[in-house]
């Protein structure tokens, strides 16, 4: 075969195409594999039952409760900070060295590995501030982790609100804050929710940062000072300590379904926002 441009192109397409196929296969395999092994285990009593014998038998209800509680707490802490930061950056100040530094800080924070968040949360919240392994310590740590995502998506959403809405609002005698909360935030809401949802997805799947800050107690939490075990942590312990492969698969399936549906919801909202704009 001669190496003329046509043949090179054919070869390139073949190579690139197989690489793409390989990628997609690998990623899809993971989901299909986990669901195939895990779905048979998933049933109502598994989802609502208490674990027995360290999770060897019984259900995962406390872990679901732990995941929900921790995620809700993290979002409640991070959303106001993230949205506030985005509002400040877009509406209250001009592009300057300061905004560049703040954005760079958020980008760096986004790149920090979760184990570092775990170490930090462990030393500051758990140890120095004496929160112990608790919902509160875990929620604070996760909040810092998801903060950059919320800042970024909110900023994008706010920038997408037409300038003319701001002009109209100011011309009708609105102050800056009135314009923000009556016009800008309502119009940016789908984008903000997208960011929050992405944060929820990240919180649900997180293990390293959670295990050192929220602990792994299998009891139902009664207050934010109680330790909790999330689904991800429960799954990790089941799998790693070889407690029960079957229940590990079941937990993994529940976890994947939860994370993917949350992310799917986020994408759906983002698309709806884009569609509305065009």
């Amino acid at each position, binding site marked *: 075969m001669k190496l003329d441009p046509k043949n090179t192109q054919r070869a390139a397409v073949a190579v690139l195409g197989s690489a793409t196929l390989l990628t997609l296969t690998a990623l899809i395999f993971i989901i299909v594999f986990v669901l195939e092994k895990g779905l048979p285990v998933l049933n109502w009593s598994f989802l609502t039952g208490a674990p027995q014998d360290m999770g060897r038998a019984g259900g995962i209800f406390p872990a679901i409760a732990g995941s929900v509680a921790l995620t809700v707490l993290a979002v409640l802490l991070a959303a106001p900070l993230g949205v506030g930061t985005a509002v400040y950056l877009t509406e209250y100040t001009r592009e300057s060295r300061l905004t560049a530094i703040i954005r760079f*800080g958020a980008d760096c924070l986004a790149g920090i590995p979760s184990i570092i968040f775990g170490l930090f949360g462990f030393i500051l919240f758990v140890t120095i501030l004496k929160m112990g392994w608790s919902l509160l310590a875990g929620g604070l740590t996760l909040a810092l982790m998801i903060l950059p995502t919320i800042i970024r998506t909110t900023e994008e959403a706010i920038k997408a609100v037409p300038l003319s809405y701001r002009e109209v609002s100011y011309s009708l005698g609105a102050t800056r804050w009135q314009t923000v909360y009556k016009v800008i935030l309502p119009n940016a809401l789908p984008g903000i929710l997208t960011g929050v949802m992405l944060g929820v997805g990240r919180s649900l799947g997180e293990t*390293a940062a959670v295990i050192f800050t929220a602990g792994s107690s299998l009891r139902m939490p009664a207050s934010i000072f109680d330790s909790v075990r999330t689904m991800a942590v429960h799954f990790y312990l089941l*799998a790693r300590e070889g407690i029960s492969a079957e229940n590990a698969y079941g937990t*993994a399936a529940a976890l994947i379904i939860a*994370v*993917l549906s949350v992310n799917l919801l986020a994408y759906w909202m983002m698309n709806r926002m884009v569609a509305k704009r065009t």
Partner: protein
Amino acid sequence: MPVTSEKIMQRLLLAVAFSALSALLLIAVFIISQGLPFIFRYGFREFLFSSQWNPQAGKFGIFPMVVSTLWVTLGAMAIGAPLGVAGAVFLTEFVPRTVMRIIKPSIELLAGIPSVVYGFIGVMVLAPLIRDHLGGPGLSLLAGSIILGIMILPTIISISIDSIMAVPKSYREGSLALGATVWQTVRMVTLPAARSGIAASIILAMGRAVGETMAVIMVTGNSVKIPGSALEPVRTLTANIALEMGYATGMHRQALFATGVVLFVVIMILNFSASYVMRQRKARR
């Protein structure tokens, strides 16, 4: 009425705007203040370049972990970068846009699969495969590289696609009009124009690989030694922290924070490079 509340809001938002930056600084300060004194006391060279990690005996050399992290990461990049960039090129240049618009978000969605799940697949599927066909214990450097290589694919593909799409259409059309094939155009026009974005995606993915913990713990076997081959078990920096943090006290705990300092510095260097590379691109426009 609004004047005072307006002032309050403005101050409040200004304070809030520093949350991410303060969090970053706080994390840096705490990790460094817990770890750096140890490094000085124990000796920088002794800590980084000694192969003795034996907390009971007061030996804290992390050289094996540094080497292992390096190898696992390089292995992951060797797998993930070509696959990811190839996928991005294929999806942007050789596939109808409508198909790309379905596949790209699907791949991004997969970035949300929790790392413990990747690790579990590594243990259940990949490690036995390696053990049976290539030898060794299965839980190994190679297993870690492959799993990490897959984990970073969505990052590389997504950012690379964005930067390839940002190349002005006119560049491409100009080349095609001169009779170049699509592949020639990709190689000579599109890829060079998108190169800083692609580079940034690879650097970011590298940061993710260096920092990944749970998946790595599950599949690499975690022995503290300098690997002689890809089939041997290794322990990375992150794994070292996660495995021993639960029970470490005193010097031992400080040594783990010192490990965190090393990790933190590496990650920050990668972050800076990625944002530098990105800025280069903006500057050229």
